[in-house]
């Protein structure tokens, strides 16, 4: 080979090899194109709760020179991208509505790490709540909604809608006037809507619409009457049990709407005042209804928030419920023993009429509903193992039932009470607003200070506080508002991680409904139907019968929870 050509070739090869070596061994800055440099951290509030949606801004000496920004996730964590060229002074600026702004300068060591191309993790960043005028407005709106519901001045759904609308009005129209009027925007508000609850209720509505048309409850009540032979010592507890078990799978209001008319008829045929049967039945409905996840709307709320399964409620509450029911049955018998002993034999005509009315009207639908219901029960009980949430089970069951039965689809869709669903959505938004502005944190902190680390005290406070308040406040909004409070106490009190406080809330909010006529919607509808049959239930009458029942049942349930968890 020509020496000149050889030298040229070798030089070119050397240059090529050098370039390749340089490229593969380039300094770490070039590696940042593949491995970004990050600042990781977490933001918490003064109650050690993660703060989501907080804006984390990386800036230089001049706060307006924004280098990078990101929002915290629901866990409070954030990952901030750091670009190549960064100044020698860096600050983290954390801001969020309803919180004080936090400025954290990065240390020279951290800045050096970042310049070298290494990611860093900051210590936990704590931002404090800031009380502004929006705190008071949101609180007032929430209290107003509760008052409207309690007094019946507006339909429940309209009351909740008014509350949600006012929240948006203040946030959107008030904010340009004064930024302290801001509560949250529409997008943020949707994070507070628990769609698992909405779809679970929707699915159950369709199933209930099929079941209740079959006449099964009327048939069960009449069968109870025949089995007991008209003996009240048997009939009363059997009817209470039927009502209670039905309430564990349907909601209490539905159960009483279906049981009250037939119970009135049975009572009248025996020459008794219907109240002798209705009052114990509605109390049994409030007590036994909490045995399962789907038995009460409050359980659905609690189960979804605390990730408690169908089995969790069955295992942890049913024994206490049984204890409470036995106490309730004894109390009911003692309360009404004089009236019960005065029952008469039923005339043949009335007995025949009762039998005609209490027949299964759709036996084939009932069988199909039974099969679907059985599989749904299995999915509720074991679906957790495949991460199947209750809402999906309810939707699967409702769809399967509709496909199998092929009802009039428009009628079935009409069976979904959209009024109730809109109520829940609006309620979530209103409760979300008071959570956003810090009212819930304030309440949680105060209760936390009151009970300290004492789990026993916390159990007693939650169960009895819930029970007594439920006699005057509608239990669904009360439960929705209390969930974050209970969540906080569950994290902070040693031993509370067993979720006992959530079960206390379930017991208190449901059994507390027996304390007054307005304590539960089931009480109100029973009273309404009884009144229209000519047997009004006054507030005083219900209080005299119901409040002792509240004391008995909540005491027995408390004893169970203490045995089970403490």
């Amino acid at each position, binding site marked *: 080979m020509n020496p000149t050509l050889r030298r040229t070739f070798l030089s070119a090869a050397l240059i090529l090899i050098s370039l390749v070596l340089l490229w593969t061994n380039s300094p770490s800055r070039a590696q940042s194109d593949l491995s970004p440099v990050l600042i990781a951290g977490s933001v918490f509030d003064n109650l050690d709760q993660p703060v989501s949606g907080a804006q984390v801004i990386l800036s230089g000496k001049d706060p307006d020179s924004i280098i990078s920004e990101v929002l915290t996730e629901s866990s409070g964590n954030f990952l901030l991208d750091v670009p190549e060229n960064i100044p020698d002074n860096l600050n983290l600026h954390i801001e969020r509505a309803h919180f004080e702004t936090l400025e954290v300068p990065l240390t020279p060591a951290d800045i050096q790490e970042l310049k070298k191309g290494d990611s860093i993790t900051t210590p936990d960043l704590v931002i404090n709540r800031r009380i502004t005028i929006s705190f008071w407005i949101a609180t007032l709106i929430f209290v107003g909604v509760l008052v409207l519901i309690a007094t*019946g001045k507006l*339909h*429940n*759904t309209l009351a909740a809608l008014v509350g949600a609308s006012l929240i948006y009005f203040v946030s959107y129209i008030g904010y340009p006037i004064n930024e302290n009027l801001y509560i949250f925007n529409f997008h943020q508000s949707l994070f507070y809507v628990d769609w698992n609850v909405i779809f679970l*209720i929707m699915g*159950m*509505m369709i199933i*209930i*619409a099929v079941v*209740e*048309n079959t006449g099964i409850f*009327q048939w069960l009540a009449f069968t109870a009457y025949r089995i007991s032979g008209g003996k009240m010592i048997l009939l009363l507890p059997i009817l209470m049990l039927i009502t209670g078990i039905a309430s564990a799978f*349907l*909601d209490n*209001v*539905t159960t009483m*709407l*279906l049981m*009250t*008319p*037939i119970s*009135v*008829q049975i009572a*009248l*045929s025996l020459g008794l*005042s219907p109240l002798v049967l209705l009052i114990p039945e509605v109390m049994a409905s409030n007590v036994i209804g909490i045995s399962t996840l789907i038995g009460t*709307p409050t359980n659905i709320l609690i189960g979804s928030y605390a990730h408690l399964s169908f089995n969790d409620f069955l295992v942890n509450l049913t024994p206490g419920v049984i204890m409470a029911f036995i106490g309730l049955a004894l109390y009911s018998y003692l309360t009404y023993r004089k009236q019960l002993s005065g029952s008469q034999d039923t*005339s043949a*005509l*009335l007995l025949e*009429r*009762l039998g005609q*009315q209490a027949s299964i009207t759709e036996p084939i639908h009932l069988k199909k509903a039974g099969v679907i219901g059985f599989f749904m029960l299995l999915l509720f009980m074991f679906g957790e193992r495949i991460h199947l949430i209750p809402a999906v089970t309810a939707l699967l069951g409702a769809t399967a039932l509709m496909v199998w039965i092929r009802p009039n689809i428009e009628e079935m869709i*009409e*069976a979904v*009470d959209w*009024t*109730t669903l809109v*109520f829940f959505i609006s309620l979530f938004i209103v409760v979300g607003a008071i959570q956003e502005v810090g009212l819930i944190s304030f309440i949680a902190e105060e209760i936390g200070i009151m009970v300290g680390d004492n789990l026993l005290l916390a159990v007693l406070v939650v169960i009895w506080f819930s029970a007594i308040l439920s006699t005057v406040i509608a239990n*669904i909004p009360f439960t929705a508002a209390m969930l974050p409070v209970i969540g906080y106490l569950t994290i902070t009190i040693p031993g509370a991680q067993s979720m006992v406080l959530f079960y206390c809330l379930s017991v208190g909010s449901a059994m507390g409904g027996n304390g007054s006529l307005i304590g539960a*919607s089931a009480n*109100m*509808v029973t009273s*309404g*139907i009884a*009144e*229209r*049959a*000519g*047997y*009004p239930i006054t507030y005083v009458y219900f209080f005299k019968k119901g409040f002792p029942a509240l004391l008995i049942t909540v005491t027995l349930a408390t004893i169970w929870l203490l045995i089970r968890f403490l």
Partner: protein
Amino acid sequence: MTDQEPKYILCAVRGGQESRNTVVRAIDLALKYNARLTFFHILDAEFLGAASLTMTPVRSIYEQLHEMGEFAMLILCDRASRRGVTRVDYKVQEGNIKDLLRQIAIETHADIMVMGRPVRSPGSNVFTRQDFDDFIHSLQTDTDPHIIVVSPDPLDIDLNSDPHGILPSEE
């Protein structure tokens, strides 16, 4: 029985203890004049819409309430039959109380309509005392039946009622 004796008595009744005097009065009149007696029960479920949040549609409960109303009327018919009334039946309808009372008073051509004076007004669909008096007056003026109002308390004499159940021509 003369041609002027009432032949058809209508008793608008809710049922229950407070309806007792009204029912007794109606049965007494039917026995006295050997008249046909119809118990009329008006069903309304407006309270359900405002009071409840339920997973079951409100409309499906109307059927249950209808059966309950029929059963209560059946008991009253049974009671009347046992006392000797030979022609007795009942009617249950749902709707607005005022409108239906007026409608049935016109449609049935009853000779006497017996009603109980309400003792409480828990809901918006039940009369207040003044409303009731005004309604009775308009009913008496606009329709055929002679209206007899019965008070639940037998000691409370109602000056608008006809204690003997006689026809207008005998007054």
